[in-house]
């Protein structure tokens, strides 16, 4: 993809995102979504975050798409850390520590 295309994409995403963030706050403060859409929106975050995580954990690029039980184990640990601490910092730091520490032990 050439530079012009990348820049166009960035600008397009910026507009789309601002329009999304501002649809009600900026434009239609008196408009309301139909209930089914409102309900559906509640499930976007869990579905999309899980959809992003799952392939990276189960078929990672680093192992050529093969299941790596160690990665899954570290991910479960990270999940537990996130559940208990609700802290992005701790999840990333402890998760990477486990990942590198465990990797060093394996070798």
């Amino acid at each position, binding site marked *: 993809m050439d530079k012009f295309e990348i820049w166009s994409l960035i600008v397009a995403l910026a507009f789309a995102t601002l329009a999304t963030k501002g649809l009600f706050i900026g434009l239609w403060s008196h408009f309301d979504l139909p209930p089914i859409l409102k309900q*559906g*929106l509640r499930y976007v975050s*869990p579905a*999309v*975050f899980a959809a992003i995580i799952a392939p990276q954990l189960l078929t990672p690029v680093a192992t050529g798409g093969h299941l790596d039980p160690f990665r899954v184990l570290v991910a479960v640990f990270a999940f537990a850390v996130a559940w208990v601490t609700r802290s992005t910092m701790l999840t990333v730091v402890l998760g*990477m520590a486990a990942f590198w520490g465990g990797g060093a032990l394996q070798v």
Partner: protein
Amino acid sequence: MKRVFGLSASRIAFLEGIRATFPLLMGIVPFGMVCGASAVAAGLDVQQAITLSWMVFAGSSQIVFAQLLSQGAPAWAILLTAWIVNLRFLMYSAALAPHFRGETETCRWWAAYLLTDQSFALMLARIRGGQPYPVVFFFGVAIGSWLPWQMAILAGILFGVLVPSSWSMDFTVALTFIAFLVPVLSDRPKVLAALVGGVVCVLIDLPFKLNILAATLSGIAAGLLAGKWISSKSGA
């Protein structure tokens, strides 16, 4: 106007907003660094990475944008998937809009641009707590988190340029998304939505990298069905 130590109540609300960002920095800084580093790792040059961050100002979609770009997905699939990651802002916008009704258009559009998960959550909490000047408070939170985040982006870009990619950047990305996923699993239909979304994304293999889109729609459908089933069971 009531003044405390020479400050008006609305100024105090703004400062309270800024102060509310302090505990959030522990999450904002690593996330910003991951966003900056992954943009560079995906092949964006420094200028593009910086522009992406201040123009879009939505970290998780920036990461997805960068990853799909590096995987060679077509432009429309990148745009669509990244936008879907940001759909939750539609929900936030709808929830906060009534409280912005008296404000000028300029104010409302700046608020829209500055909207993040944290500023949304904190403003909502302030409103539900019945505390004054939620809009001013919102701007305190939003501005107070925008600057550290952009600086974290710069640090991440620098890190990404200096450090070789053998440091498993993608696992760090997975960890940050795990940190985001956990707080939104607040009821069983949402857990089901996540499970279905994750499973579908791994199992199917669509052209144009539409896996995430299809998986998200499946997850939403599963969540809606579960929600309906639960409410019909309880006779609601």
